């Protein structure tokens, strides 16, 4: 069944207290599969299935949980990933596969696009540090592969944070933050976000932050009405 159909049926089924009906688990899981395949997303559905796993531990299915977590990474900068993590109980997080997603999440949440693209392209060099999160970097790209539209989602996320950070950005830097995107792709994304090209397309004008981000000094303003009481109380100074 298509995502839209499942979504419509489920929204009726998880209304009010029925959200907690464990009978919905199978259909919710099917809907998560559809999201993965069709590059769709529904916040209520993914959080509901995690909730049901929390309340009905016997129905827990880690495969679905993994897919849910990866789906929530695709809607960054929304806090869905953080929300989803809070719904996973202690006894579940020992799993290496989940750990791997949490580590990837940490990279993305800190806007470390450079590392993300290295992981995707297989150029990531793990350190010898015992805490090195990506000892087998290839596992990450393998995990991402079935998720339709994952890389595009991350590019979109990168553009959103670039929008609020940069006034002008060089094409070279922009392209590298977008994982070495081609000129054509960079131009298409820039157009989508309303960025103008300048200097023969070598620089993009993102937004005029100069106008809003300014140094200011704020002085105290005292309203007369606030001190009127005191001024009228008229206590003569003490005379010695």
């Amino acid at each position, binding site marked *: 069944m298509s995502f839209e159909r499942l979504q419509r049926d489920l929204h009726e089924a998880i209304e009010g207290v029925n959200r*907690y009906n464990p009978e919905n688990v199978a259909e919710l899981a099917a809907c998560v599969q559809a999201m993965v395949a069709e590059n769709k997303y529904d916040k209520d559905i993914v*959080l509901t299935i995690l909730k049901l796993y929390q309340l009905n531990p016997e129905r827990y299915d880690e495969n679905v949980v993994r897919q849910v977590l990866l789906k929530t990474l695709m809607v960054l900068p929304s806090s869905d990933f953080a*929300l989803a993590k809070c719904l996973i109980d202690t006894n579940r997080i020992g799993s290496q596969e989940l750990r791997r997603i949490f580590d990837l999440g940490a990279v993305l949440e800190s*806007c470390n696009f450079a590392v993300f693209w290295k992981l995707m392209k297989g150029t990531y060099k793990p350190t010898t540090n015992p805490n090195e999160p990506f000892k087998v970097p290839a596992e990450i790209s393998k995990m991402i592969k079935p998720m339709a539209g994952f890389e595009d989602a991350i590019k979109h996320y990168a553009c959103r944070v670039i929008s609020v950070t940069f006034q002008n950005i060089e094409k070279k830097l922009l392209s590298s933050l977008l994982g070495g995107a081609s000129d054509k792709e960079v131009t298409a994304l820039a157009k989508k976000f309303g960025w103008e090209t300048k200097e023969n397309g070598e620089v993009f004008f993102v937004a005029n932050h100069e106008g809003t*981000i*300014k140094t*200011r000094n704020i002085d105290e303003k005292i309203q007369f009405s606030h*001190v009127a009481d005191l001024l009228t109380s008229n206590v003569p100074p003490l005379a010695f």
Partner: protein
Amino acid sequence: MSRRVEFDMSHEDHTDRRRTNTFSSEEDGVPNEVADYLVYFSRMIDEQNVPEILTLYDQAFPDLTERFFRDRMWPDENVVERIIGPGNKLFIILYKELYYRQLYARNARGPLLVHRYESFMNYQELFSELLSSKDPIPLSLPNVWLWDIIDEFVYQFQAFCLYKANPGKRNADEVEDLINIEENQNAWNIYPVLNILYSLLSKSQIVEQLKALKEKRNPDSVADEFGQSDLYFKLGYFALIGLLRTHVLLGDYHQALKTVQYVDIDPKGIYNTVPTCLVTLHYFVGFSHLMMRNYGEATKMFVNCLLYIQRTKTVQSQQPSKKNFQYDVIGKTWDQLFYLLAICLAVQPQRIDESIASQLAERCGERMMHMANGNVDEFRNAFSTGCPKFLSPTTVVYEGVNQSKEPLLRQTQSFLEGIESQMALPVLRGYLKLYTTLPTKKLASFMDVDEENYDSFLGKLLTYKMIVNELGKEAGPSTVDDDEPQTDIDFYVDRDMINIADTKVARHVGEHFLRHIQKLQEVQDVLKRLDSAGQKP
């Protein structure tokens, strides 16, 4: 000093009723005054006399507890039934609700399993009276009592979850009973608890009604006779806030905020009439925002709540009723709020009310400095002191180690994982403060970033802006209505140059001078009086 409450004893009918009962209260060890109180109380409930009920509930009950029941419990339901006569089912249920609440409050280690079970049964009976009646039942209770019922119900559920995860809290006999209860899932199971709260919502059509109110439509147009009844409307309203708390305790922050989306945070909301309800609402909404990394929203909630408590503190402490056995929710939350506020402001500094800011600096100044220097343990401490008691509804431990703290550790961990990715922020701020313009490469070298990791370093700048602009918020960045920026430092990057804007706020001195002028006048008054007294020989 305890304030005595007088009740009207002159009525004929209750003395009659007592005479016809062959009951002698002194025999059961119930003082006459208490017996009279109970009879009068049940009559006022019958008559739906809300102002009287409020006095009897809020003042007389703690007063009598103080005088007669410091070392023993209030009489049990059978004795009470003999005192007030038969046919007062609803009063007995309400009385038992108070009775069990006392039991919970008195035992530092928590009540016995049997009492936990009985208390749940009593709640079930109360709610089924309310929910399965064909017509709205004729009952009027003061707001504070209605809120206390919902609040205590959620609290006892929380207490039960922590109890069953901790084998150290029970004796051998209780283990058998607990196995039984868990097998039948007939007490304090998450499903019936959620069911009751949601049923209160749907019975009162509270969500539809609040939505209508928000859209300036007549709420009665979406409500049936239950929804239009004052009792059901208020119970539904308080159940929303009880549910908010339940969702947060289970780590479901999105659902928590969704639950109260139509509860307007404004001076007209019913929550304003009950101080503990106001504090609960602000604390849990603020906490949910904190977990969703909307530090700006969270700060606003916490500061408003602190201001409220500060304003009403003198009134609260003068109320004699709150002193015995009743847990000081507001006092405890007051402390917790400072820790949570410290976290928010360490990650995203903002200007807040000055009186709160100075108290915060006094309490947590050093901690905040450590947090700003990237000390994760300091964040951990502040979080675990400030957060609510999380719970796992499915964890039962019959023997072995106490697992009641596991959910707390889990939430702390996922909070800290978020903090770690923002850990560079305070350090970054430290450098940005010193400049008005700064090339990105130069900043990278300050922070010991080599050429190879330069792109990763840019991520820190992007994260900073992402947090400050609250990109994670669903509705997009809020439109700031005043012209004063909330953050003290902001920047944008133009190619490879960071342009920094800082907002300097001149110290507010008016308040200070006003206080001292007043003080001076007071001193002068005193001096004058001394002076004239001294002139007499």
